[in-house]
Every structure is written in C-alpha cells, then in structure tokens.
C-alpha cells in the first residue's frame, strides 16, 4: 500500500515536471516564433503590396487642408 502511494506520487511529480518542461520550452520558442513572424511581416517585401496601394490614392486639391 505504502509502495503504491510512493510510486503514484513519484509518477505524478515526474509527469508534472515533464509538463512544466514542455510548456517552458514551448513558451520560449513561441517568443522566438512570434518575434520572427513580426519581423518578417515588417520586411519591405511584405510591405510592398500595402505601400503600393497609395498609387491609387487621389491627391487632395489645392482648396483642401493639407495638415494631418
């Protein structure tokens, strides 16, 4: 009975440690991934389609305010 309890506790602790390690690894790699995604999304190639859309913008006339 005592042995069974000790084994169960050891197994629970081992599983908890394993889960903790997996989550910790995943969190740190998530940080790297999300930073990489952000930097990639800010690259000139990624921005090209958005910035190019201004070519279609109609410029305001002389009688309109220019400040922004």
């Amino acid at each position, binding site marked *: 009975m005592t042995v069974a309890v000790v084994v169960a506790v050891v197994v629970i602790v081992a599983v908890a440690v394993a889960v903790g390690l997996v989550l910790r690894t995943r969190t740190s790699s998530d940080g790297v991934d*999300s930073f990489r*995604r*952000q*930097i*990639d*999304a*800010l*690259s*000139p190639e*990624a*921005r090209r*389609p*958005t*910035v190019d*859309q*201004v070519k*279609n*913008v*109609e410029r*305001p006339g002389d009688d*309109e*305010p*220019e*400040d*922004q």
Partner: protein
Amino acid sequence: MARDLAIDLGTANTLVYMKGRGIVLNEPSVIALNRQTGEVLATGREAWQMIGRTPGYIVAVRPLRGGAITDFEITERMIRLLLQRVGVSRFTRPKVVICVPSAITEVERRAVTDAARRAGAADANLIEQPMAAAIGADLPIDEPVGNMVIDIGGGTSETAVISLGGIVALEAVRVGSFDIDAAIQNYVRREHGIAIGERTAEEIKVAIGSADPTHDENQAEVRGRDLMTGLPKTVILTPEEVRSAIEDVVSSIVSSVIRCLSKAPPELSQDFLVRGMYLVGGGGLLRGLAERIERETEVPVRMSNVPLEAVVLGAGHVIEHYEALKGMFMGARR
C-alpha cells in the same frame, strides 16, 4: 463579413484603410451640427467648407485637438458616420486599428477605443503614430539599424527612433500645424489690426509660410475684418513676417527633434548620419522645415514619398498582417 479597417484619426484629417482595398476615405476631421437640435448636418470635406462661414444655428467643429478627443460624444458620432460611409453597419462589425499620438494618456486611449467600439467596431486596438508612419514610409524597421521618423501633424509633432520593429527613443510635443495657423492669426491681429479666420491663416501658411528663407519668396494679400472699423480690409504680408510669427512653434518642433536625437543610443545615432531622418505628416510640408531641421541637427532630412498617407498605410499594413503584428499594439505585452 466586414472588412477590417485602419483609421488615422488625425486632428486635421481622418483617413481610413480597408483591408484588401487600400485607402477608402480621406476627409477633414470636421463635423457640422445644428446647435439647437444637436443633429449632424455634415461631416468631412462638406463640414470643413463650413468652418467660419456658418449661420448662428450651425456649428462646424473639429472634435480633436492636439491629437486628443476634446468632445467624446461628437467624436463618436463623427467616427460612426465615417464608418457608415465605408460600409460598416450594426451587422458588419470590423476589427479596427486606430493610430494615435504616442503621448496620449490612459484616459485618452480609452476614450478613443470606446468611441470606435460604440461607433460599430467589434474590436479596437491602438498603434503609435510614429511607428505606423515608419511602416508606411517604407523604412527598413525590420533591420537592426537606426530609423528616425518625424511626424508633424495638425496637433502633435512626434519624433521616434525605431529599430527591429520597436520604438527605441521617442519625443512628442502637442504642437503642430494648427499652432502655426493660430500663430499667423494672432500675428495679423496684433500687428495689422485685422481678424482672419483659421482657413485664411492656413491659406497664408501654404502660400508664403516657411521655416527657413527660400529662393522663391512672394508677398501675399490678406483680407480680413478691421478690428477698429469692423470693415473688410486688405493688408500685405511678407514671408519674413510669417517666419517671425511662427518662429516659436517651429523652434518647439526642432527642439523636440534634437531632444529625441540626444536620447538615441550611440550605435543607432551613427546610422542617422548615413540614412538621414524621414519627415512625414502635413506639417512637414511647410517650406524650409526640412532644411531648418537639417541645419540645426546636421543630420540629413528626407521627405517621405507619401507624407500625408504614411500613417494610415502603416496601420493598414498592420491590419493586413493582424496576427503577426498584434504585438505592436499599444498596451500589448512585448
């Protein structure tokens, strides 16, 4: 299904970028109301044309000053009407990214997001104007190099150093091109004894205003109301007079650029000498301003190809890559 939107809620103009479509609205941030009933009579360009020319029962107002909401209710109504014009209804509630000055307070942030949500947005997030401007001006902010952007708007002037997708140094002053117009109005009233409206002051700024002497300088005829007689009167204004009238405002903007330069880490500072600083925003179009900043900082100043649209284009890019760039929102955990 609503298309998500990016909004540059400027003191002077409001621009809206629709995901997948580009800039769909570019209108002055003005609303005209019936003073007695509170009914909205016009927004945007139509309302702007009414400024200073309305009968007693109509009031045409700019609900934002210094980049901040001065009248929450009117701003909300203006945003709602602008969103309706780009197809937002109670059944189509888009995600919205709004560009705001980086120096706004927590209360002002909440006022902007609440106004957007009440106006029909499903979710509203904020992004700093200089960051959006740097994205829209196509600066290489994804690289570990110093990018400096100066955004001079109607009510605020912000200078930021950006590297690797984040703001490294920032300096903001609640001074912009409306303060230049006000300085011209005050000068003409004080020195020539005539009252002029804010639209006339803006026309003077555009026609002969400058921050530094330029090659082609002409005088301008200014028409207003004589403060003594009450009759219409014309006076001649020279570019030197306008320069001296706006000197305090220009100095304040240049000083904030210098303060930002002094905050930048040395490794990035050296990049500015090679890459220069980029000027965006309508206020940056003031003649001689780039030259003045360049003269006082000894750093090259370049004008963005899209000075008026850079901010909304940057926010539009964030909307296009929402998941990847949501960490750039104000208040997001970095």
